[in-house]
């Protein structure tokens, strides 16, 4: 607290140095009622300086005489007044004309008229959070939205987004596939969040319930995210320039055993099972203190493979303006990011042009085009990429030096034959093993025309083509390596693979909408037609025999040439409509319906209808609440609707012969054909039915606003592929519609806006989401990867395995089969081994003793933002977290020293007779169940709680005063410093990041998240 006061006193002093303004007082009046309007915003234009009217509608603000004051309030038209000589400025705000507007499907709606559950995030709220991917801006901001950040890799750091949990069973273990991903529309065009520059975004709207999303039909079951980009405003051209430089470091670094500790523990692992020590005392000494370059004694692999302070630069320039009839916005962006893992980087170039023009009173048209180029590099690493590098930095025992004295990268060690890793040194492989380059070229042109033949009847047509071309060049160099004595070639023949994946989505859409006021009630409607075709073309070619890393094009080698190519397509065609009705703004009703046809469904089930209904009651507008001055707004909402999920692959309904079943005859490869999958011609979409009840309240002179929702989202006819008998030919099972999955939960968000004195403003927003996932009905349970169970009555993808109930303290205890049952290791079970629970009590621990041991579905997510503004200073901090998410994770290391894989430093606390009070088992060479975490089925000790609370963003900025800024010809000048991911509270294992922990992967090889320190600048003129 004392610190905080110090900071504020400092802010105050700085402010005094700049304050040369006059003080203006006044009152804001509600034009509708003639009464004073509390809680209205008063802002000095072009600055962040502002205030809010008090209970009586009064305000006091200081501003320069040339300044313009902006008066605004939710639901009222904004008014601007130039200060001039006045010291008192009273304004009347005309109400109910515009209101706070929310982007909804195919249009916008006043927030007060909303009847569905929609979460929004505006550009101001994103602030200058230096996110490299637009999706990350949503983190912790919108209730019901879960982000799983799988990777922090430059150019590949898009999180997996889930809205209100997983509704589909097909989300398979291991791959966090797209089956549960929401539909993303950028300015109405199906797209991805990678395609938008974060600074181009005006707002996000997250359509969470069926009522808001039903108009998107068969693609909307996982929710919809609408992104609206900024557009031009009429008036003088306004140029904005934003830039920042950030220095990134991994949030945390795995702490693996050093060579010395590894060798020491490995010796113990040997003697624990009656084997000879592998490393002599002299060798241990060399690992500890050096002295022989063949015995590595330096920093850990992560010290060599992770980068601290990797720079990230971002520049963004936009200009917008226009006349009454034509408005424009142009923007360009450039970002250059060095990775926090060696040999990784990414550059991104963005552009956007949004042009809207009013051709006549009745005709409007516009042309938007946006595009980007992402150019990313990572090590080829024998074709496995950077993920394998990270995996190897965890697994490889660091006994070998990176290079020997002969200058060659190490592969094995002649001094340690049979006692060390034989592979190429991970860091050497990353640096000299070749490079993978991935370029994404994306462009989205979009043209629309709007005709208003009679007032309030508007027809709109738009067409767009979304083009994405992914070009990959993967070069794997032939390496010359050494074991310290012999020099030999490794890493293959020197190969190069070039591939091209072109995806296009063409959309054509027509809508008509009409609005009619009938006395006290309003009626509006929308009808539309849309068709969409999608096609993907893939082409790849490779050659081998590259002897030089300098010549890496296809023609530079001729050995074993190979080509491959394929294509796929799908199409969607739909009709949709919407009717809105309200009576005095008090009673609201909305109905949506979509009629979808998809080529992905079998002929027998090609078309589906997706309806929704919702109602709202603005209670605060009722007479009986008129006198409750503390309640400014209160609305009760309820909705019901059905949505579809068509993520079943493009051709699930069609049985085919796969022609990639080759065999060798006469020493050449010839084609073979066979059916490899079973088709289901009757397959149809999965239906998700959502009921949502919500309450919106604004209280205490508009200072406190609150939104609460309860939902029940049930997916029926769930698309899944239950296993079929192998006697059908070991075919992949067909997609079938069966089963029910429920996601039930609540969401709460609260905003408080307050002032202290006339200059200090602050706000606190917080949100909390809770979701329970449960499989309601499933014909037969299924277990994937021998550890992930989907079963009726339990959450989807539950972890399934043996329960570990402790560690044996003596050999006698380990062999006490009457108490513990025969352990999986049988007679070999010993002191220091895990105790497997004999859950069925039959005296033998076997597969039948497995139980559900964890739930990977996120139960609670939350976020909290605190902002404070004082004169030109502004401060913002965002916390975000997850409470309740289990992951399977190999953070203990991979094999308990059965072989030569490394372990984390957790094993320094392993069980020994001298250290009996621990939950880390003993180490033991050779593969026995009881000491190993990842042999055979999953065990509960490998299931970890990945809950965390993280300070996602903290920022302090200063906007220079108008006088100063205008003297140098600018309208705004702001500088800021910020930090990302600086602080994390978690019980997760030290050295590993809970946010990027992979759910179903027993080695945590995620590219690390960055914590970064940012300095930035915003300039406008």
């Amino acid at each position, binding site marked *: 607290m004392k610190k905080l006061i110090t900071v504020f006193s400092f802010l105050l002093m700085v402010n005094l140095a700049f304050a040369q303004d006059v003080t203006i007082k006044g009152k804001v009046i509600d034009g509708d009622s003639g009464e004073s309007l509390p809680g209205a915003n008063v802002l000095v234009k072009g600055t962040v300086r502002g205030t809010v009217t008090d209970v009586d509608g009064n305000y006091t603000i200081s501003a320069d005489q040339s300044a313009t004051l902006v008066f605004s309030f939710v639901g009222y038209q904004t008014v601007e007044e130039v200060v001039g000589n006045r010291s008192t400025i009273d304004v009347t705000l005309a109400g109910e004309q515009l209101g706070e507007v929310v982007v909804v499907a195919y249009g916008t709606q006043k927030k007060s008229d909303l009847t569905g559950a929609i979460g929004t995030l505006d550009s101001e709220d994103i602030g200058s959070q230096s996110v490299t991917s637009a999706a990350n801006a949503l983190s912790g901001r919108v209730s019901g939205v879960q982000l799983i950040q799988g990777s922090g890799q430059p150019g590949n750091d898009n999180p997996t987004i889930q809205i209100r949990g997983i509704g589909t069973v097909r989300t398979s273990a291991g791959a966090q596939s797209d089956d549960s991903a929401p539909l993303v529309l950028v300015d109405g065009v199906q797209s991805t969040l990678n395609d938008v520059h974060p600074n181009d975004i005006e707002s996000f709207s997250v359509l969470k319930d069926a009522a808001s999303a039903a108009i998107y039909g068969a693609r909307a079951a996982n929710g919809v995210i609408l992104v609206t980009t900024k557009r031009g405003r009429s008036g003088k051209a306004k140029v904005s320039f934003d830039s920042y430089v950030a220095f990134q470091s991994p949030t945390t670094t795995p702490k693996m055993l050093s060579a010395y500790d590894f060798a020491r523990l490995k010796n113990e692992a040997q003697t624990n099972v009656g084997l000879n020590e592998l490393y002599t005392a002299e060798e241990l000494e060399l690992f500890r203190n050096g002295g022989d370059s063949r015995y590595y004694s330096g920093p850990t692999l992560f010290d060599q493979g992770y980068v601290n302070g990797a720079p990230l630069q971002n520049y963004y320039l936009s200009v917008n303006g226009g006349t009454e009839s034509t408005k424009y916005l142009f923007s360009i962006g450039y970002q250059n990011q060095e990775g926090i893992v060696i040999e990784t980087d990414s550059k991104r170039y963005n552009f956007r042009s949004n042009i809207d023009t009013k051709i006549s009173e009745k005709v409007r048209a516009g042309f938007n085009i946006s595009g980007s180029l992402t150019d990313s590099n990572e090590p080829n690493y024998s074709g496995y990429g950077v993920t394998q590098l990270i995996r190897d930095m965890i697994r490889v025992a660091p006994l070998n030096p990176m290079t020997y004295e002969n200058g060659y990268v190490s592969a094995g060690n002649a001094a340690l034959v049979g006692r060390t890793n034989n592979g190429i040194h991970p860091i050497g492989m990353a640096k000299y093993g070749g490079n993978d380059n991935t370029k994404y070229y994306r462009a989205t042109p979009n043209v629309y025309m709007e005709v208003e033949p009679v007032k309030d009847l508007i027809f709109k047509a738009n067409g767009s083509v979304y083009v994405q071309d992914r070009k990959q060049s993967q070069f794997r160099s032939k390496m010359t390596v050494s074991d310290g004595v012999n020099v030999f070639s490794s890493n293959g023949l020197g190969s190069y693979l070039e591939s091209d994946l072109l995806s296009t989505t063409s959309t054509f859409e027509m809508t008509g909408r009409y609005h009619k006021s009938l006395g006290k009630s309003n009626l509006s409607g929308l009808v539309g037609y849309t068709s969409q075709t999608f096609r993907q073309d893939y082409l790849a070619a490779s050659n081998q025999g590259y002897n030089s890393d300098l010549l890496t094009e296809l023609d530079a080698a001729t050995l074993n040439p190979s080509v491959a190519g394929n294509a796929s397509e799908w199409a969607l065609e739909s009709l949709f409509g919407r009717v809105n009705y309200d009576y005095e703004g008090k009673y609201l009703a909305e109905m949506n319906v979509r009629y979808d046809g998809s*080529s992905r469904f079998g002929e027998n089930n090609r078309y589906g209808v997706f309806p929704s209904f919702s109602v709202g009651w603005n209670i605060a507008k009722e007479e009986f609440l008129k006198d409750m001055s503390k309640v400014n707004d209160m609305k009760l909402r309820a909705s019901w609707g059905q949505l579809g999920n068509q993520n079943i692959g493009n051709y699930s309904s069609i049985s085919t012969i796969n022609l990639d079943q080759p065999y060798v005859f006469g020493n050449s490869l010839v084609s073979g054909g066979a059916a490899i999958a079973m088709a289901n011609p009757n397959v149809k979409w999965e239906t998700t039915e959502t009921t949502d009840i919500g309450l919106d309240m604004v209280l205490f002179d508009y200072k406190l606003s609150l939104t609460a929702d309860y939902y029940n989202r049930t997916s029926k006819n769930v698309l899944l592929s239950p296993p079929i008998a192998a006697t059908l030919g070991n075919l992949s099972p067909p997609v079938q519609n069966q089963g029910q999955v429920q996601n039930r939960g609540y969401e709460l968000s609260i905003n408080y806006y307050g002032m202290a004195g006339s200059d200090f403003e602050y706000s606190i927003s917080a949100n909390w989401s809770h979701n329970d996932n449960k499989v309601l009905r499933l014909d037969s349970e299924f277990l994937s990867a021998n550890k992930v169970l989907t079963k009726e009555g339990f959450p989807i993808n539950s972890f399934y395995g043996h329960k570990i109930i402790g560690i044996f303290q003596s050999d006698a205890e380990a062999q006490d089969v009457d108490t513990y049952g025969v352990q999986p290791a049988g007679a070999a079970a010993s002191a220091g081994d895990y105790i497997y629970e004999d859950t069925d009590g039959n005296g033998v621990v076997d597969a039948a003793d497995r139980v559900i041991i964890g739930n990977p579905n996120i139960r609670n997510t939350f976020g909290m933002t605190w902002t404070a503004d004082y004169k030109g200073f502004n401060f913002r901090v965002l916390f975000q977290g997850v409470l309740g998410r289990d992951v399977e994770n190999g953070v203990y290391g991979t094999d308990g020293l059965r072989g030569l894989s490394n372990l984390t430093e957790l094993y320094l606390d392993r069980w020994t007779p001298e250290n009996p009070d621990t939950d880390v088992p003993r180490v033991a060479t050779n593969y026995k169940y009881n000491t190993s975490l990842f042999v055979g089925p999953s065990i509960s000790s490998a299931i970890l709680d990945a809950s965390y609370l993280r300070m996602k963003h903290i920022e302090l900025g200063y906007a220079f005063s108008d006088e100063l800024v205008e003297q140098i010809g600018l309208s705004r000048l702001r500088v800021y410093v910020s930090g990302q991911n600086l602080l994390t509270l978690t019980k997760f294992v030290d050295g590993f990041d809970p946010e990027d922990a992979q759910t179903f992967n027993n080695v945590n090889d995620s590219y690390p998240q960055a914590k970064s320190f940012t300095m930035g600048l915003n300039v406008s003129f």
Partner: protein
Amino acid sequence: MLILAVGCADLERYPLNSIGAPQFWATSDDAILGVNGVYNVLAHNHMYREFMKHSDAIADNAYSQYSFNYYLEISEGRGFDASSVWPSNIWKKSYEGIVRANEVILNVPDIDMDETLKNRIIGEAKFLRALFYFHLTNLYQDVPLVTAEQTIEESLVPRDSKAVVLDQILEDLNAAVSVLPVTYGTAETGRATQGAAWALMARVHLYNENYAEALSAADQVTELGYELLETEDFASMFLPSLENNSSESIFEVQFLGNTGSSGVGSSFNSSSGAVPAFGAGSYHPIQEFVDFFEEGDIRKDATVLQDGQDFAGITFSGVRTPTGFAVIKGVIPDEMVTGDGDANFVVLRYAEVLLTIAEAENELNGPTATAYEAVNKIRTRAGLENLPEGLSQDELRVAIKRERRVELAFEGHHYFDLLRYGGEDLKAAMESVQSVPSHERVYDEKLLLWPVPQAEININPNLLPQNPNW
């Protein structure tokens, strides 16, 4: 609705890189593609690319240290059960091959094409179907006999008795010998020949103790002109230099490296541990097996790489592998060959046929000259003395077993031999393994058969009862 009728999106979309099943099986090209697809299954890890070679590590010829692939657990006789991966892998892969063969056998007769080619293709499919069913009966005994197309509902069938399956195997092989050619042109090398069908028939009969039939099938092979290679060619028989091209080889699973297609090259080099560039390998001959070779047996150095021996110009150091040895049979002496190599897997060769003759003759008529002659041919080629005269029937039986173990090591025989010899042999074999630290093999009667995969029973409870004691 009108607007949909004139809409611009065509909702009829078909796969662009595979043929719709209803359009297939129309031409002779389709027939060839289809039968090639059956052969494709042979080259899988769960068949000859890995499993058959590694099966010697389940038996007492070798040791596999990696428990994740379950060879270790099967060899130790515990830690593997109906839920383990290998019972499931082999079951699934075998039926994959069987159903692909069924498709050929059911669909090709209706194609309008050259009759000779048509009959040959059907014969190849029948040979392959017999081979897959043979593996199944050896491991699981009674298995569902599937010869027709099935729907999901129809697939919930019970197991058929081994005798019924055996009848089908022999019916298929009898059909195959009548249509398969004795040899193929160069471009078709690798397809099943008449000799292959006879040799497999001899093996099937031998395994099922039909000794007279085994002898007569083996004689058919001999009549086709197969003979043993010379001593100096023994090792090369398993390497690209002689593959498909020797008088001894009868049927090989074909592999070709560096094609750009995955899984069509052999992994024998990377799994052996013979060259340092690919690590310790995944299975290793054990001391007891190395000691089992008689003095002067040339097959020892052609099968096992020992400490201090030169391989591919690199001196092998025994400490590199857990047992001190590496498999060398079928491993190309080139340090650059990876898990994508050219070496074929020799499934059937004349040496096995000779040992079949010896065993069948000894069982039928005792230690006759025919039996002796057959074994001694093998021993002479291996650089060994003839068997001593005057062995009893039992003694000769033991001698033939010994000969099979060393002659056919790492060719997918020894483990299956132990299973057919019975509990006493399997028990003795398991208990003989003492040299590997921390590795104990515990015999149980149930190990003579594998369990039917639990996952399959979950789908189809009609597969119950499970094999005894599993």
